[in-house]
């Protein structure tokens, strides 16, 4: 109640238009800084999430697959698409020197189902040899997957216990994964036994691009971790030279495109934040200077009534800080209202891994944005407050200043 009746608050209430304009300005500034920072953090969190799920040094795919424009997103992020190579290639790769861990994966894209017009990527792995997907799935589902058990990505509107039908085969949802910010969120994971049954069913129904393939005799890609004492380049070259019609790719190279795009977007956002913030401080500085000039006589009267120069400077400073605090809270509220519900749309528009940070990180970002906003307001008003503290009341009342 004391604050509500204080002179700075009453001054702000007394000039609603001026207060509203200053409030709007600080709201927009905080929205830019908070929203921009949260975007950059989310992009970096998304990239980190993708990197942490790579798990393999080398990925081997059939040579024809390298002509697919979205190969990187199929194998790294779970976008829809599939290709196969003979199982004997897997055996040949496994016999190459320097192989530490090796595991095969199987891909299949589901046909459009009744509930949605988009197909889902189904990724199969061998539970006995897998070292990339299993550690991640174990965080959500500690047991071994049984035949026709599936684990669904976070963005699929299916829940544990539901039944999903792919190519006429009913699959039981055993677990739902944590969000990754990549296309893995809309993928389905299962063991090799189940995916082979699904591939067979797709072939039987004449819905597979690869006619007459034997699911037991093919794999989609091979993931490799290099053994100690060997370099990734050595093993990579060995596979590319000795195994025909396949392409071995270093996974780090595949992610570099995503990383470069992310870095470019993060730079643009950072530049935008800096420009808007500098422009904002200049506008606030001008706004406060004009406001103080307008109110010179008001300050002179207050001086005559006994207010010290220090008190007047403090009053102007308090008004500015109150506006900045309120504006920053509104800006943050608006930022959260846009970014939280529309994060899926932003991810689609950017076409990059996008994962909102944890609540703790978001709270830190919020506090930092409030501090930056209030501090900027303080800096912008400090010149005006200093001028008031040096003001000569007599000259102002005589109209000479």
């Amino acid at each position, binding site marked *: 109640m004391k604050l509500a009746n204080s002179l700075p608050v009453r001054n702000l209430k007394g000039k609603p238009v001026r207060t509203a304009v200053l409030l709007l300005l600080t709201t927009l500034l905080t929205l830019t800084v908070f929203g921009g920072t949260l975007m950059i953090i989310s992009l970096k969190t998304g990239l980190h999430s993708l990197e942490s799920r790579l798990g393999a040094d080398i990925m081997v795919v059939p040579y024809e697959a390298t002509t697919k424009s979205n190969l990187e997103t199929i194998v790294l992020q779970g976008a829809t698409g599939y290709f196969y190579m003979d199982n004997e290639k897997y055996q040949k790769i496994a016999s190459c020197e320097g192989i530490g861990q090796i595991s095969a994966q199987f891909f299949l894209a589901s046909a459009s189902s009744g509930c949605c017009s988009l197909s889902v990527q189904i990724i199969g792995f061998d539970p006995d040899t897998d070292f990339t997907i299993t550690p991640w799935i174990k965080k959500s589902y500690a047991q071994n997957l049984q035949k026709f058990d599936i684990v669904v990505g976070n963005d699929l*509107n299916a829940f544990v216990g539901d039944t999903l039908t792919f190519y006429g085969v009913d699959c039981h949802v055993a677990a739902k994964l944590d969000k990754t910010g990549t296309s893995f969120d809309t993928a389905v994971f299962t063991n090799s036994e189940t995916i082979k049954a699904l591939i067979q069913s797709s072939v039987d129904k004449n819905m597979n691009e690869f006619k007459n393939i034997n699911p037991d005799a093919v794999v989609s890609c091979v993931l490799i971790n290099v053994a100690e004492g060997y370099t990734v380049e050595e093993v990579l070259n060995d596979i590319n030279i000795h195994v025909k019609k396949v392409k071995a790719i270093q996974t780090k190279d595949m992610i570099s495109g995503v990383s470069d795009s992310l870095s470019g977007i993060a730079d643009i956002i950072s530049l935008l934040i800096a420009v808007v913030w500098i422009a904002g401080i200049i506008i606030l500085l001008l706004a406060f200077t004009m406001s103080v000039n307008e109110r010179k006589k008001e300050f002179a009267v207050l001086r005559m009534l006994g207010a010290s120069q220090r008190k007047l400077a403090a009053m102007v400073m308090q008004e500015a800080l109150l506006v900045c605090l309120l504006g920053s809270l509104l800006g943050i509220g608006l930022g959260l209202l846009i970014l939280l519900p529309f994060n899926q749309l932003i991810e689609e528009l950017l076409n990059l891994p996008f994962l909102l940070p944890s609540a703790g990180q978001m709270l830190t970002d919020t506090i930092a944005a409030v501090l930056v906003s209030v501090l900027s307001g303080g800096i912008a008003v400090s010149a005006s407050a200093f001028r008031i503290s040096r003001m000569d009341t007599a000259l102002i009342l005589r109209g000479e200043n």
Partner: protein
Amino acid sequence: MKKIMIPDVILCILSAVLCLGTKFGFHACGPKEDGGWMACHWAEQAVFGLGIVMLVLSIMMTFLLKDGKTKSGIALSLAGMAALALAVPNHLIMLCMMTDMRCHSVMKPAVMIISIFILGFSIAAYIFHRKEDSET
């Protein structure tokens, strides 16, 4: 002269945005290849229907009615309908399978934000009209 309250006018605008936006702006997923509709279409229809009723009620409250008690009753009903609109996408009526589909990424958040604002302004309108009624 009849006094027009700002929250009432904002409610008219928001109801119109909800009603028209659901059909023409932030609509749900389009029809399937076979011409049939997905589950989210019915959520869109439900929100559209609620939006029409909210628009009619908010216009009545703003421009036609004079009694403070009636207006505060309408404001309360608008709040209830906003809560219902908030619950329609993916709660009362399920949306599509993947959350990166349009109904999840565009329609649901847009309906959610507008409904929250309508809820807030309805409560504000209720308070204003109660006050207006007690003053007369």
